[in-house]
């Protein structure tokens, strides 16, 4: 079984399990899984920018907030159906991200980190300031949508499938984007901007568009979370949300699609486990994990699994090779 085939089988099994979950889990657990998918979409967005393109963002929580508030305001003020708020919120974030990405072109590395960190800190205050639209510190309370087309699902099950569907869609789009010419340009800019430019990559355009797409994914996740939680408030989008997202991509694996999923599971479930120790414990654990991963396993869980997989398959290949040597089945060095 080669790698691509194995991956397809895994993916199929995983999707199958994901489709069965709503009928075996309690509503509360299901809600947690829905959250995981939402985080995974947001992490995909951040990973595209920080992992693949090498632009450090410590402020993606702000785009998550913009997406969430765009959806909430559209539903609350104008009665737009929730299904439509998702693409609109993504489009708004695409634009905002692109616009923020333009000045970011001049900021390298640390300076971009600084600017986005300031953005993360400023976001809740800005949201509170436009009280007329955002409902101030009280936030906006929305109604949870019911399953359409007379499907026999309760709202939690329906929202779960909605999140799962959006997740698969975004990963399909993201995967295709990264596999192609554009993806190679995105990665080339991270690895060697000057060489990329010399090869004819328009770095300015690619970088700012990547910023936009990244913000759009994260904003889409925000909009989805507004629909699922049926409530938005400025203080849930503070700087720690941005840091949580950063933790997600680092633990899951920088520049890895599957890493976004692992990271999402990590940031959703580890704090729950740690909460029993103390209110502050999750963050202490997060911090320790961040530092330990950066020092010991910079490629995150995805990298670790990849390494493990290679080791296992290599052994199997060499074993079969020993039994029945065939041409073209060399163990990879």
């Amino acid at each position: 079984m080669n790698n691509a085939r194995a991956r397809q089988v895994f993916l199929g099994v995983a999707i199958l399990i994901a489709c069965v979950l709503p009928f075996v889990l309690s509503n509360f657990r299901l809600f947690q899984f829905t959250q995981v998918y939402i985080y995974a979409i947001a992490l995909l967005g951040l990973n595209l920018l920080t992992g693949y393109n090498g632009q450090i963002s410590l402020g993606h929580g702000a785009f998550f907030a913009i997406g969430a508030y765009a959806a909430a305001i559209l539903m609350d003020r104008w009665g737009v159906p929730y299904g439509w708020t998702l693409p609109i919120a993504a489009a708004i974030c695409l634009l905002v991200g692109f616009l923020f990405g333009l000045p970011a072109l001049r900021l390298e590395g640390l300076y971009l980190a600084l600017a986005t960190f300031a953005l993360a800190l400023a976001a809740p205050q800005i949201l509170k300031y436009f009280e007329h639209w955002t409902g101030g510190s009280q936030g906006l309370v929305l109604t949870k949508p019911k399953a359409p087309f007379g499907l026999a699902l309760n709202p939690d099950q329906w929202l779960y499938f909605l999140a799962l569907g959006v997740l698969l869609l975004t990963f399909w789009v993201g995967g295709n984007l990264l596999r192609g010419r554009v993806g190679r340009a995105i990665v080339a800019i991270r690895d060697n901007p000057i060489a990329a430019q010399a090869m004819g990559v328009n770095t300015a355009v690619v970088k700012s568009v990547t910023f936009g797409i990244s913000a759009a994914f994260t904003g889409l996740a925000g909009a989805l979370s507004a629909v699922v939680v049926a409530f938005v408030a400025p203080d849930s989008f503070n700087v720690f949300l941005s840091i949580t997202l950063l933790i997600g991509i680092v633990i899951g694996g920088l520049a890895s699609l599957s890493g976004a999923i692992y990271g999402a599971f990590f940031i959703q479930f580890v704090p729950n486990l740690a909460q029993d120790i103390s209110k502050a414990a999750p963050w202490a654990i997060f911090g320790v994990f961040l530092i330990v991963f950066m020092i010991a396993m910079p490629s995150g869980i995805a990298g670790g699994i990849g390494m493990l997989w290679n080791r296992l398959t290599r052994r199997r290949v060499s074993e079969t090779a020993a039994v029945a040597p065939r041409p073209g089945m060399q163990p990879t060095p």
Partner: protein
Amino acid sequence: MDTLIQQVVSGLATGSIYAALALALVMIYQATDVVNFAQGEMAMFATYVAWSLINAGVPYWPAFFATLVIAFAGGLLIQRLVIRPVANAPILTIVIVTIGLLVIFNSLAGWIFTYVQKPFPSPFPKEPVRVGEIVLGTHDLGQIGVTLIVLLCIWLFFRFTPLGLAMRAAAQNPLSSRLVGIRVGWMLALGWALAAMFGAVAGMMVAPVLFLDPNMMGGVQIYAFAAATLGGFTSPVGAVIGGLIVGVVENLVGTYVTFIGTELKFSVALALIIVVLLVKPSGLFGRTTVKRV
């Protein structure tokens, strides 16, 4: 007019806090090209140490200096244990590690000392100083005084001691410094230690005003970032002047531009950082770095 002078003085007082923290940031940046996102939280934690000492009955000034020593040792340890292993890693890695430190200090403080705000004593008399019609807070003046003394000490240290010279050399040209026998690794650690110490000074000076809680330094740090950006991350003098400017501007804007007030405090810092980076990325006093490719 009197209000203006009072506001400028209290702006200078706040600015001196930003200046101290910005100076800490710049020291680390110059030595290791790292912006330490945990600087504010380290300062907050040091302030909690001082608070514990004072609460245990130690008089203010001994507690103050003991805290400086502890902060110094803490900074040294952090550099040796956490920063050194990733010293040659990409910028992203180092940024993430300092974010990890930020999170750890913040939550540890919450864990050990709870999130309840605590009053922190000021070493200066409560009676305000009156100059004619103008009333000036003694804590404000004391704060400015302490910052000036710290700056003087630092300047003397870097200008007149062999160790200060070695540190400057290690920051400027690590390879050659090593060849003449300077232990570059330890010089970098010393930079972190000194930075942690300035942070501690800033924390202990600002705590009587803001009250002590684990999130105390969040706002101060973002303004210190703005100050360091404005003055230039490569210039210690710039960091101090930037801090004072930011402090005064913040106070004046808060008083006279009513629609901003305190509600958009962080947005002002954000706007300041972005504008400076766009217009003059090296800051007012920084060197423009030219990269050889």
